């Protein structure tokens, strides 16, 4: 059976199943706003969320209440730096048949008490009915504060959480510099050799003075338990062994906290307590202070990751690029995603992604589990072993590795042979990388020459180069003598080639060679490079 056959066989699925995916995602009551958020996140690509593979089905944002406060709500001063809250609609009636149970908060109220009255079955149904939005997504411009965890902890904007949990934070803006909403997320994952069973946990917090989309009424209407604390009402939804939601309004802003089933109780209570007691200061999240992520076409930033992704000119095994996008962090490339035209050169490279990691820009955790090591340490044998010994279920054709401080995920065609296709492409890139390392020094040398800091040789100039040409290869400069240079120049086609290929300090390199170059001139160049 082939992939094509499986693709065709899917046609035989039942109409019910097909229709189930014909419309909106499950549970979604999609609004235009949500669509725009989707567009926004598509634009942002994978830059959100540190551990990008984690389950992010998070929830929404809330309405502000101004001076109008729900029964039990707080009438304290508005959140620092928050835009003026808009009037709130009056609370919705509870769903028929659901009568809330009020619980009085105490200092040592255990988590079980919050969920003591939630009913397993009906609550599952209630959760299904919730409008499905994705926590952390809002409309408008966004800035990332994910790299400022320490500062935010020091400012008291967020609680101090174990560093094993990846932190991300985003703020959304309308027209001004002060955000209209904030989202924070802590994520933890445990990668096992059975990736399909990878454990992920997350806890997310959303804070907003007002909302453009989902009202907390959605939760309040469905709730069974309300915990009264210091004049505020904390609406609870979920179960101890399932996901949990807490919604409350305090200090002029709504907060939603959501946690997956496995979040430790003490951590959840710590987060709940922190955000109850500490209003995040929106002034610490000004638009100017945040990081900007944006996607760009490679054509608009052709220098991005140059030399770090295969191109057709590097090897005949590499298909032409069908498309490449670059993720920019404050204008600096932090990721490139290349897709290759697998129909032009079949059975070889499909995709190649390079990450310079940031909290918002990380490869799948699988890439750590399956990391093959550093490209510079690869050998044909190690690459063969990698594909021979891959853990079950990780795909036979993807290799993850590090390279000059970046992480790379390369996906090859299923039939691509490690010996004949994958290794040659990786080796080409590695050798090129070494050459690039040297070329940067050459470039500096050229720059020095141009700046008058080094003698200019009229016959020979150095240049950046991609790969070695065997037939024009001179050898290692260390071994060069005037005689060997004369012999080299007398080889057919050498002068016409205009290139002088050599090896120096373990790197391949070439210099441009004028047709009229004399052996003595070239040897003089060699002497200068060697520092004789």
């Amino acid at each position: 059976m082939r992939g094509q056959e499986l693709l065709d066989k899917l046609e035989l699925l039942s109409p019910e199943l097909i229709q189930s995916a014909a419309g909106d995602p499950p549970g979604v009551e999609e609004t235009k706003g949500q669509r725009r958020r989707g567009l926004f996140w598509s634009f942002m690509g994978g830059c959100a969320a540190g551990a990008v593979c984690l389950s992010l089905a998070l929830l929404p944002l809330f309405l502000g209440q101004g001076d109008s406060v729900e029964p039990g709500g707080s009438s304290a001063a508005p959140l620092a730096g928050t835009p003026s809250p808009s009037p709130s609609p009056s609370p919705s009636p509870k769903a028929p048949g659901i009568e809330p149970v009020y619980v009085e908060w105490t200092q040592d109220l255990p988590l079980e008490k919050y969920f003591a009255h939630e009913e397993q079955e009906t609550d599952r149904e209630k959760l299904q009915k919730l409008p499905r939005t994705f926590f952390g997504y809002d409309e408008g411009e966004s800035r990332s504060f994910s790299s400022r965890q320490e500062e935010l902890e020091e400012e008291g904007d967020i609680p101090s959480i174990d560093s094993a949990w990846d932190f991300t934070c985003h703020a959304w803006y309308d027209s001004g510099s002060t955000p209209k909403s904030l989202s924070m997320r802590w994520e933890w994952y445990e990668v096992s050799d059975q990736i399909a069973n990878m454990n992920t946990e997350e806890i997310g917090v959303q804070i907003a003075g007002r909302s453009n989309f989902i009202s907390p009424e959605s939760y309040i209407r469905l709730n069974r338990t309300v915990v009264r604390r210091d004049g505020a009402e904390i609406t609870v939804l979920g179960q101890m062994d399932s996901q949990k939601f807490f919604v409350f309004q305090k200090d002029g802003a709504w907060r939603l906290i959501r946690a997956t089933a496995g979040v430790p109780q003490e951590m959840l209570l710590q987060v709940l307590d922190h955000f109850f007691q500490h209003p995040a200061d929106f002034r610490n999240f000004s638009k100017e202070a945040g990081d900007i992520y944006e996607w760009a076409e490679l054509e608009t930033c052709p220098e991005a990751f140059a030399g770090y992704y295969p191109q057709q000119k590097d090897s005949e095994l590499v298909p032409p690029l069908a498309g490449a996008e670059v993720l920019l962090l404050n204008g600096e490339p932090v990721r490139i995603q290349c897709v290759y035209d697998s129909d032009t050169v079949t059975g070889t490279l499909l995709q190649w992604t390079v990450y310079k990691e940031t909290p918002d820009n990380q490869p799948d955790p699988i890439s750590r589990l399956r990391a093959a090591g550093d490209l510079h340490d690869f050998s044909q044998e190690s690459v063969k072993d990698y594909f021979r010994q891959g853990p079950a279920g990780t795909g036979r054709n993807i290799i993850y590795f590090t390279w000059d401080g970046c992480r790379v995920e390369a996906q090859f065609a299923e039939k691509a042979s490690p010996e004949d296709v994958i290794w040659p492409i990786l080796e080409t890139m590695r050798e090129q990388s070494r050459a690039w390392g040297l070329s940067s020094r050459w470039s500096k040398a050229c720059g020095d020459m141009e700046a008058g800091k080094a003698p200019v040789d009229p016959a020979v100039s150095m240049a950046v180069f991609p790969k070695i040409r065997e037939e024009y290869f001179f050898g290692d400069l260390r071994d060069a003598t005037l005689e060997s240079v004369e012999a080299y120049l007398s080889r057919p086609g050498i002068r016409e080639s205009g290139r002088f290929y050599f090896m120096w300090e373990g790197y391949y390199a070439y210099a441009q060679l004028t047709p009229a170059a004399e052996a003595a001139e070239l040897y003089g160049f060699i002497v200068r490079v060697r520092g004789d």
Partner: protein
Amino acid sequence: MDDEAIVALFLQRDEGALREVSGKYGGRLRTLANSILQDASAAEECENDTYLQAWNSIPPHQPGGYLFAFLAKITRHLALDACRRRGRKKRAGICARLTEELEQCIPGPSDTPCQVDGILLAGVLESYLQDLPEEKRYMFLRRYWYCDSVPSVAKRMGITQAKVKTTLHRVRAGLKEYLIKEGYDV
């Protein structure tokens, strides 16, 4: 007009059925075809062929309760065929990519000739998909049935592309294990 009424028009050989079905589902069918073909005019052609095939198939079929699925199945089939006919042309890319991705679900060497009973396999696939959480099932179907691109699935679900890729990766891995368990280890 509801699906039952449209199917009734088909059964009466009333060409108004085509107008109704085009108005109701044309956009979605065109989108499906375009996802596969990446070519607006070819997608339009595919949509028209779908109506023709539907006209020739109803009767005997009477897909009253699942008209869209019925039409979409035709569109998908036509579009995949057209995509493959393009052979090595660039625009056949989506087909090749989906095929490559699904190769990862397949137990055993992919070049092993294997006549798998389509109906049985569909049953196994269906059973696997039914057991998946709703969100994963939706994602799988959007990608491999509706042939949506990864960015498009991400956009539709309001999640990151990375999450889509990762989830699909796991669902494929799970499907492979499931197929092995069900005896498809050929």
